[in-house]
């Protein structure tokens, strides 16, 4: 067992886990943040996407010890109190989910995508960049709409300056 410490959603956390614990299992089991999902365990589906030091990664592709000392953001870290993050709000408004299983990963990918492109997104780019996230309800259409809407809303304050 190793004591693995990191910052998750701005909070310092620490837990004793086996070296071989994947980051996703650390998040879900050791610190009880079950918003990050495990879909395929083979780095294909994207349900487990989180941000590690600002990079969107699949948390089943990384050991918890590899993330030691890093700053991790999960789906639980997006909202401010009761106020949803703009991407979460857009997913709700556009019904960007059906069963909801892929949604945490979709949203974490979307937040990263919007940040990297500075909100300047078109449908082709969104669909391309969503390739690492699989929705088996085949709800992509509304997911894309939600991301485009969130991107537009998130760049508005900057545009108004």
């Amino acid at each position: 067992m190793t004591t693995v410490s990191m910052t998750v959603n701005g909070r310092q956390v620490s837990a004793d886990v086996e070296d071989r614990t994947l980051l996703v299992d650390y998040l879900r089991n050791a610190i009880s943040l079950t918003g990050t999902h495990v879909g395929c365990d083979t780095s294909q589906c994207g349900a487990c996407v989180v941000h590690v030091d600002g990079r969107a990664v699949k948390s089943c592709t990384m050991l918890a010890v590899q993330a030691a000392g890093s700053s991790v953001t999960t789906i639980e870290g997006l909202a401010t109190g009761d106020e949803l993050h703009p991407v979460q709000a857009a997913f709700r408004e556009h019904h960007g989910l059906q069963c909801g299983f892929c949604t945490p990963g979709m949203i974490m990918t979307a937040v990263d995508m919007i940040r990297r492109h500075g909100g300047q997104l078109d449908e082709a780019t969104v669909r391309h960049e969503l390739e690492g996230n699989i929705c088996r309800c085949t709800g992509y259409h509304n997911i894309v709409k939600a991301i485009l809407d969130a991107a537009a809303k998130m760049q508005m304050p900057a545009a108004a300056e």
Partner: protein
Amino acid sequence: MFWQPTSLQEAVRLLADEGGILVAGGTDVFPALVDRPSPAGLIDLTRCAELKGIAIGADAIRIGAGSRWSEIARASLPRGLAALQAAAREVGSVQIQNSGTIGGNLCNASPAADGVPPLLALDAAIELVGPHGLRRLRVGDFVLGNRRTARAADEILSAVLIPRRLEAGGSAFLKLGARRYMVISIVMVAVTLVPGPDGRIADARVAVGAASAAAQRLGGLEARLIGTDPVGSAPADLVSAADVAGLSPIDDVRASAAYRLDAARELVGRAILQAWEAARA
């Protein structure tokens, strides 16, 4: 056990003393486990400072083996490296590009490794560091077959070196899969073309991946392209069936061998035209 060395020297010592599996981005190691536990001994290379960074030297561009695909895709590099950067943007998906490294791609040595054809087309070499020192090999002499490389058990791949003499050329990378992304390639192609003062091809490198146990160059075609101007040719006219006859694709769930050969021929033709357009731009 899990080790996280912070220097290459320490990593080499650990590998010699403890053995174990080297891991960087983990995008091959962890998915291959599915829900089985991780192997007992892992040496994580992601904190070795010497493996990071891309530096443009006098004769070669040095890409640290620990460079992630997204770092390679976003780096400011000479236009001749466009094929490598295009490949970087097509590895897995964004999240995989944010984790996976060029060194891991080479050492894992999948026949469908996206990094290998562009590196062959750029005449790249790799650097191996072991307890007995450092050696350099050309990529074609390093990747030997399906999951087989020239890396000795006690060596660590530290860097990829791309000679600068091809950097002014044009290059292209094309990949065919059942879907656009997140698929294992059916076939992929990289081409580098350098124009001469007469406006014709002075130097040509053509490499095909996923159509043999290890990606390979098409030497006969390269020789024939020298002194020609492919403008206006149809892709299929540039490449003959004989040019791709040396490939040995497999039949599998993704495609038949015959289809792979056809696809390789067409993609090579298209990549030649694309690289030539870039070379003359």
